């Protein structure tokens, strides 16, 4: 596998100066492994949703889950997160769960 010069040099600096991995090969392999794992995981989920459409979580479900995974204070206010999810997709249809949590946090801070 041939890497473009710029990321290859950047990886070498990260390994040498920052100790990011034992070698540039190890760094590249780990990044590739993580990316492939994410792609496979999403493909498995998409196949499952195709077979079980009711199982697909909506943006609000994902925002609540993201807040819960982080132990975010807004995890205890799912109603606020659900309202934020409904609001944010009006202007940002591609918003993800973390965008919703951030938006809800901003709304909560503004109204405090």
């Amino acid at each position, binding site marked *: 596998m041939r890497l473009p010069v710029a990321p290859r040099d950047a990886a070498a600096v990260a390994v040498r100066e920052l100790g990011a991995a034992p070698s540039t090969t190890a760094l590249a392999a780990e990044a590739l492994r993580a990316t492939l794992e994410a792609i*496979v995981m999403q493909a498995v*989920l998409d196949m499952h949703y195709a077979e079980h459409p009711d*199982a697909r*979580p909506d943006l609000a479900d*994902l925002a609540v889950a993201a807040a819960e995974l*982080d*132990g975010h204070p807004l995890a205890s206010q799912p109603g606020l997160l659900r309202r934020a999810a409904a609001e944010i997709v009006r202007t940002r249809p591609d918003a993800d769960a973390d965008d919703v949590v951030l938006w809800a946090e901003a709304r909560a801070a503004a109204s405090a």
Partner: protein
Amino acid sequence: MSPVVLLDNEAAQALGEPGHPKHRRVLSHVQAVAQRKRRGTGVTMAIPTAVRVEAGWDRTDPTWAFANRLRIRDEALDPTQANQASAIRRRTGVSVADAHLGAVIQATAEPVTVLTNDPDDIRAAAGDQPTTIVTI
């Protein structure tokens, strides 16, 4: 440090059974993990093997194929963890599976989140280890 998300017995069962009332709720957490992985956040999911036994999750059983494909790694009960789990069980009275879960929590240097239907037992098993507990 990469956060670790652990499953308890009911979370595992809910994940493996599309008809389970909490299937979608557990899937929302798995999907949130998948999205973070896609962004390069090194979050991982795992299940202690004693929890897998309690949940009936047999990796050779085709009915568990979906869960098997989600890159959820096993945390095996090695001799050191067996000692820890035994001490946790003696101290708290939690189940063998929850004691193994507690041993995994206490042995993990990374931040841990547990998906569970029994937060009190997980809190007891985790001891002083800071743990994010999500009640499903």
